[in-house]
C-alpha cells in the first residue's frame, strides 16, 4: 500500500511543480537555518571533558570590601582568587587534586639564528593541572609539586609548537627562551584543546579556539617576571610589581572532588576558610561558592548571546516555514476533493486517505531534508569562514546529520496532519454529484 501512496504522492507533486518547489524550498531553508545554528549552539555548550567534568569544581571566595563590592549589585562572588588565597587553598590539600591557573601572552624567541621572536598564548599553572585535566603527552611529562615550590624554570609545550620549533622531534631536555629567560622543556603535549576552554574563563583569553602554546609553572614563570593577562584589584595595595602580595585577584582555581562526600567536605572546608579569613581581618565577608564545571560554564554564560539569538531566530523561521507548508498543503488537498471523493466511492477508507496525504507530506519533508542538508553544509561552511574564535569547530557530526532528517520529517508530518485530516473527512457524495 505504501508503494502505491508513494506513487500517488509523486504524481500529485509533479502536477503542481511551482507549489511543490515552493514548499520544499521553504522547508529546506527553515531546516538549513535551524540545524546550522543548533549545531553551533550544541558545539559551544558542550562538555569540554565528558569523562571528568562531574569531578571538577571551581571554588570562589570574596576578598572585596563590603562597601566596594566586586559587582555593582554586590551579588556576584569574585570570579578569580588572589595569589594568597589560591596558595592557601592549594597547600591545604583538601581535594584529591588542585591547580591554580592564569593566562599570559608570552614572547617566544627561537634559538635559531635569523628566526624572529613571536607572541604565543601561555598558561601559568601548578603541577596538578596535567593529571587533573587528563592532558595527553607526546613526550615527557608535566612537572611536580616540588618543581612548583623550587620555582623551577621548566616548560611543557604544545605539539604544534614542538612541530614549529623542533620539527616534531622529541624536544624534552632542550631549552626554550620565554620572555628572555631560558626554560627547560620537560614535556610535549599531544592535541589538547577542550571546548569551551573552561579553565580560561575570565583570565583574559578566548573562551573557544585552539589550546595554548606553552605551559609554565606559576611560581617559576613569575620569578621570570611573566605577567598574567588579567588582574583586578580590590584594595589600595594593588602593586603590579608584587602581584603575590598585592590586593588583586588574578588566578582561577580548579579542584578534583571524586565523590559527593568529598564535595560536601570541601564546601565545609571552604566556608571555614572564609570565616577564618574574616576573623583574621583579611576578608569582610564569608561568602563562598563551589560550582561544578558544567554549572560554572552555564552561570558564566559562556555561549555568546549572538549564537543563542541566532538559534532562536532560526527556530522561529522554521515555525513560519511549517505554517506556510500547512497552508499550501491544505490548499492543494482541498483542490483535490473530487479525486478524494472518487477514491472514497471506490472503497478507500478514511485511514487510507489520511495515510496517502501523510505520505505526500513525508515526501516533501524528505526532499526538504536533503535540500536542507545542503543548506546546513553551506551555512557551516560560512561559519567556518567567520572571524569568531569557535569558527573552526563548526562541523556537522553524525548525530546532527540524522537529526536534520528527523526534524525535516517531523516538521512535514506535523504540517501534513491538518490537510490529511481535512482530506479524509471529505464527504464523497457531493463531490461526485458536482462532477
Amino acid at each position, binding site marked *: 500500500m505504501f508503494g502505491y501512496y508513494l506513487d500517488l504522492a509523486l504524481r500529485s507533486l509533479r502536477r503542481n511543480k511551482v507549489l511543490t518547489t*515552493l514548499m520544499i524550498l521553504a522547508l529546506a531553508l527553515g531546516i538549513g537555518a535551524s540545524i546550522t545554528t543548533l549545531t553551533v549552539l550544541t558545539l559551544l555548550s558542550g562538555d569540554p571533558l565528558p569523562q571528568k567534568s562531574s569531578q571538577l569544581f571551581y571554588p570562589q571566595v570574596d576578598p572585596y570590601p563590603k562597601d566596594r563590592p566586586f559587582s555593582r549589585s554586590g551579588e556576584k562572588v569574585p570570579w578569580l582568587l588572589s595569589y594568597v588565597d589560591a596558595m592557601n587553598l592549594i597547600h591545604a590539600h583538601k581535594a584529591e587534586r588542585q591547580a591554580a591557573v592564569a593566562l599570559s601572552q608570552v614572547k617566544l624567541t627561537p634559538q635559531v639564528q635569523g628566526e*624572529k621572536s*613571536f607572541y604565543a598564548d601561555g598558561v601559568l599553572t601548578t603541577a596538578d593541572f596535567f593529571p587533573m585535566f587528563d592532558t595527553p603527552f607526546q613526550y615527557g611529562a608535566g612537572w611536580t609539586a616540588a618543581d612548583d615550590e623550587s620555582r623551577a624554570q621548566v616548560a611543557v609545550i604544545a605539539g604544534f609548537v614542538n612541530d614549529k620549533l623542533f620539527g616534531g622531534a622529541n624536544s624534552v631536555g632542550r631549552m626554550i627562551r620565554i620572555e628572555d629567560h631560558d626554560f627547560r622543556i620537560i614535556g610535549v603535549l599531544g592535541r589538547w584543546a577542550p571546548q569551551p576552554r573552561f579553565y580560561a574563563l575570565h583570565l583574559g583569553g578566548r573562551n573557544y579556539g585552539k589550546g595554548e602554546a606553552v605551559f609554565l609553572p606559576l611560581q617559576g614563570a613569575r620569578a621570570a617576571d611573566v605577567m598574567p593577562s588579567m588582574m583586578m584589584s580590590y584594595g589600595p595595595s594593588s602593586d603590579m610589581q608584587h602581584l603575590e602580595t598585592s590586593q588583586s585577584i588574578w588566578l582561577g582555581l580548579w579542584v578534583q572532588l571524586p565523590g559527593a562526600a568529598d564535595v560536601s567536605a570541601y564546601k565545609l572546608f571552604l566556608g571555614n576558610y572564609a570565616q577564618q579569613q574574616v576573623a583574621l581581618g583579611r576578608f569582610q565577608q564569608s561568602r563562598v561558592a563551589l560550582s561544578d564545571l558544567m554549572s560554572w560554564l552555564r552561570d558564566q554564560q559562556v555561549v555568546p548571546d549572538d549564537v543563542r*539569538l541566532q538559534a532562536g531566530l532560526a527556530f522561529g523561521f522554521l515555525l*513560519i516555514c511549517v505554517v506556510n507548508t500547512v*497552508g499550501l498543503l491544505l490548499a492543494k488537498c482541498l483542490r483535490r476533493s473530487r479525486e478524494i471523493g472518487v477514491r472514497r466511492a471506490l472503497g478507500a477508507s478514511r485511514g487510507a486517505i489520511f495515510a496517502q496525504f501523510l505520505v505526500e507530506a513525508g515526501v516533501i519533508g524528505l526532499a526538504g531534508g536533503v535540500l536542507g542538508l545542503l543548506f546546513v553544509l553551506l551555512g557551516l561552511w560560512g561559519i567556518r569562514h567567520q572571524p569568531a574564535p569557535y569558527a573552526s569547530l563548526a562541523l556537522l557530526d553524525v548525530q546532527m546529520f540524522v537529526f536534520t532528517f528527523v526534524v525535516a520529517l517531523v516538521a512535514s508530518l506535523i504540517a501534513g496532519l491538518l490537510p490529511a485530516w481535512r482530506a479524509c473527512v471529505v464527504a464523497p457524495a457531493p463531490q461526485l454529484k458536482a462532477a
Partner: protein
Amino acid sequence: MKLHPILAALRKHKAGTVLIALQIALTLAIVCNAVFIIGQRVERVNRPTGIDESNLFLISQQWVGAPSGDTADGVEKLDAMQKEDLVALRNLPDVVSVAPINSLPLLNSSWTGALSLKPDEKNVGTRTAYYFGDEQVLPTLGLKLVAGRAFNAGDVQHQGARDQRDPATVMVSKAVADKLFPQASATGSAVGKAIYLNGSGKPSTIVGVVERMQTPGTGSWASAFAWNSTLVPTRMDANFSRYAVRTKPGRLDAAMRAATPALYAVNPLRVLDEESIQSFAEIRDKAYRADVGMAALMGVVCLILIGVTAAGIVGLTSFWVGQRHRQIGVRRALGARKVDILHYFQLENLLIAGVGAVIGVLLAISLNLLLIRQFEMERLPLAYVLTGVVAVLALGQAAVFAPARRASNVPPVTATRAA
C-alpha cells in the same frame, strides 16, 4: 463594499484564513525584532570615534632583551629607545606626525580608571579610559579641540609602565567635562580645574577639552562610559610600545610598508610581524565584524521570511480564486465589474492581514520582552511596530494582487457553463 459577504465566505475557509493570519503574525513579530536588532547594530557601527580615521595606522611592537621597566636606569634606556623609534618614524617621507600611544579607540585594549573632584576617593567617581601620548597626539589622531589648549612639549613626562605617578596636566573629552562639571554651562569652564585620578591625593589640571573621543573597549562592559576619555601627556616606558602614525593623504599603504624596515634599521631586536602594523580601517573592521555579520544574517533571514510569507499568500489566494471560479462568474453575470472582484480579494486580504497584524503586534511585543529578559535587549520602539504593521499590510496587498487580477479576469460566461 459591504464586509458581510467577505466574512461569510471566510467562515467557510477557517483553516486557510487562520493559517495566513498566523503566518503574517509570526512574520511581523520576528521581522520587527530582527530589524530592530539590525538597527541597533548599524547605529553602533556607525557612531564616530571622534578621531580622523583616514590615513592613520598603528604599530604595536615589543623589544627582545629590553632593559627592565622597573628600575630607574631601565626606564631611561627604554625611553631613549622609544624616542629613537619616534624620530625614525617621523623622518619617513610619507609620514605627517607620530605619537606614542597606549591604545586607540576600538582597539579593545584599555587602561581604565576613575576621575573625581576630591582627593583620595578610591573606586568612585567618573569612569574613564586613559590614553597616554605626547604633544603630537592631537594632530596625529585628528582630535578636535573645543576649549583650552593642546599639550606642549613641556607637559610631556615619561615613566615606567608600572609606576604610579600622577600627571600635572591632562586633557579630557567633552563627555568627561560635562559629567564632572554638570552645572557649568560653557565647556570651557572645565579648563583650569583640578581633578584627581584613580583616588590619588595629588591634583591634575585640565588644560584642554576635546570634542569627542571613544574609549578602546567595544564590549558591553565598556558601553556605560564609551565617550569618557582622558589624555595624559606621558610616554609609557616598557618592553613594548605602540605608535600612532598619520600619513600624507593617499600614502597610507606606502607608509605602512616603510615602517617595518625603518624600525628594524633602528634596532633589529624586536617582535614586529604583519599583525603588528594595522591601519585604523582594519582596527574598526575587527572591532565591529561580529556586529556587521549579525546584522547581515538578520537581514537575509528577514528577506527570506518575507519572501516565504508572500509566496504562502499567493499560493492560498490562488487556490481560493480557482475554487471560487464559478461564484466569481455568477457575480460578474449579475453585474459586478472587474474592479469589484479585484477589490473583493484585496479587501479580504486586508481583513486577514489586519487580524494577523494585530496578533503580530502582541507577539512582537512579547518576543521583545523575552529578548529583554534573556539578552539585555532594549525596548522595541513603537515606530518599528507601526512600520512593521504597515509593511505586512502592504506585503499582503502586493502578494494578493496577481491572484486577484486573475480572478477579476474570469469571464461572466463561466456562470452559465457546467462546473
